[in-house]
């Protein structure tokens, strides 16, 4: 129907539209009252920035279009990236932002999910007390949701990174694991490979032997015409890595168990640190951060004794959250997406800021979904 919009039957004129506008205005005012300045990023963004950040998979999730002069453009799939860019370009060190507008997402065939929907968001940049900022963003969004029948859930991707750091293995393996935190199946495969010695193919044995004999370069040169951007040096360098990989000690069973018990950790925010210390005593730093966040949330008026915590929460969404993550879903309305969600993405700001990052945490509410949950703009 032409009058319908995401999650709402009527929302494009009359009372339906008025309700949507009122809701968006209410959310924006709430964010601004918390010290945020309004920001309005472009809806058409250069595709290369986003693709470079998220990878080719994004093409299956966002709309691309082409301009003869500006090249490939992408309809804003979320606000985070352009807001970070605006913040970085502005040279500001600490700031709070509020925004509202449409985002566009391609959906899988047969999906009932909307391809265009509103987001209203609140972001905190450059704070020097991460726990307090995490708690503030969570509390601001929780307040904005008011008495809607939503269930919160929290997580912390920092735990996975801490567990990887603590592994007794080489930096290269840790790097590979970090890179695949957001792709659980490959992450698991890496762990398996690092913990068991799989037999090598005859060709691989021969290559590794040639590295030992110092004849690897020669063998690579004789294996086919050299072509392409990847040089023989690069191939030879990786052959050496493969040899050291073969000789590297396997991950112990205890180490693999540690990672999976951290990933499987479920508790409340109030007891998360304590539970983490139980399963992974060496992750004291991460546990301290959990404690500080629980305290800050408590100070912000959140009852952490009933706030669910799942260490793996947020692991399969777009790859940029790297610390605290949270969401609010509507248990009675499985047809609706999460009504609100957010998290910390310090690393993303470093990537977009050419190495100069700022601490950043934020979240969004889906105003149309919130209205649908309220009973809809009818």
């Amino acid at each position, binding site marked *: 129907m032409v009058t319908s919009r995401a999650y709402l039957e009527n929302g494009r004129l009359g009372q339906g539209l008025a309700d949507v506008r009122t809701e968006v205005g209410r959310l924006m005012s709430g964010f601004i009252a918390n010290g945020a300045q309004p920001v309005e990023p472009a809806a058409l963004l250069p595709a290369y920035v986003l693709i470079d950040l998220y*990878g*080719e998979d994004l093409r299956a999730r966002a709309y691309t279009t082409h301009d003869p002069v500006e090249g490939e453009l992408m309809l804003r799939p979320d606000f985070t990236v352009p807001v970070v860019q605006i913040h970085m370009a502005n040279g500001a060190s600490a700031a709070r932002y509020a925004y509202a507008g449409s985002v566009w997402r391609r959906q899988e065939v047969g999906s009932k999910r909307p391809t265009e929907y509103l987001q209203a968001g609140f972001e905190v940049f450059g704070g020097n007390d991460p726990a307090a900022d995490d708690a503030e963003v969570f509390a601001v969004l929780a307040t904005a949701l008011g008495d809607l029948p939503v269930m919160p859930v929290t997580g912390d991707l920092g735990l996975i990174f801490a567990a990887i750091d603590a592994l007794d293995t080489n930096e290269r393996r840790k790097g590979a694991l970090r890179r695949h935190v957001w792709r659980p199946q*490959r*992450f698991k495969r890496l762990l398996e490979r690092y913990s068991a010695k799989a037999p090598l193919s005859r060709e691989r044995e021969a290559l590794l032997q040639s590295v030992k004999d110092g004849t690897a370069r020669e063998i690579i040169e004789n294996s086919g015409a050299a*072509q*392409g951007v990847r040089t023989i040096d690069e191939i030879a360098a990786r*052959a050496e890595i493969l040899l050291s990989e073969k000789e590297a000690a396997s991950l112990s069973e205890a180490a693999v168990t540690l990672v999976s018990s951290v990933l499987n950790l479920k508790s409340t925010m109030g007891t998360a640190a304590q539970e983490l210390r139980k399963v992974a005593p060496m992750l004291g730093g991460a546990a301290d951060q959990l404690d500080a966040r629980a305290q800050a949330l408590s100070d912000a008026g959140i009852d952490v004794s009933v706030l669910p915590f799942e260490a793996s929460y947020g692991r399969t969404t777009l790859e940029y959250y790297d610390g605290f993550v949270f969401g609010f879903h509507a248990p009675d309305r499985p047809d609706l997406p999460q009504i609100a969600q957010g998290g910390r993405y310090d690393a993303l700001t470093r990537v977009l800021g050419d190495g100069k990052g700022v601490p950043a945490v934020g979240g969004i509410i889906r105003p149309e979904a919130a209205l649908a949950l309220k009973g809809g703009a009818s």
Partner: protein
Amino acid sequence: MSVLKLGLPSKGRLQELTIDWFAERGITIERTGSGREYAGRVVGFDDIELVLLSAGEIPKELAAGRIHLGVTGQDLVHEKIPGWQDKITELTEMGFGHADLILAVPSNWLDVESIDDFDAVAAAFRAKHGYRLRIATKYHNLVREFLRGHGVADYQLVDSQGATEGTVKNLTAEAVADITSSGDTLVANHLKILPDGLILKSQATLFRSNVADWDEGIDTFGRLFHK
């Protein structure tokens, strides 16, 4: 008046083999007009309209229901029609037009013999060169789905509508994902197939449109294959 539209490849070896395949089943397809005219008929079936199309167009026509039956490659249907199972049914594989969609890398990449290696090389390549490893292909959807399924990161797809095997030599890609039947072209261009890089096995297939209007065509369809 026609009640059933049959889409066939408009020319070449694929058309010849298709006509042979029907002939083996007692169905005579005749080209009409001059050899270059895209027209023909199914002998004894005045109510079947033969529609000669490029094999690449046939999936779209089936999905839109503008033809009832069509012969084309599975690769083209799977690539061009996301969620094709809802709109198109595979009736029978025809035993020719075999082609595999595969992932291939330069044959001197001795350090790469699996998708695991490929993923590791993609990470190292990006770190060294500052951009994602490029895979040249025209099968964007199938390749992306395959690599996502395998959790491969740090690659990008670059479009190549022809002479894809030459892209590595031309420095416009580091790897290719393309259709091959014998692998000869790959070998000639100093490329090797990754053993676990088989993305899709494809052959010429008779497809049925689920979207087309079958009210009148269903009887003719029955007569065509069961007479």
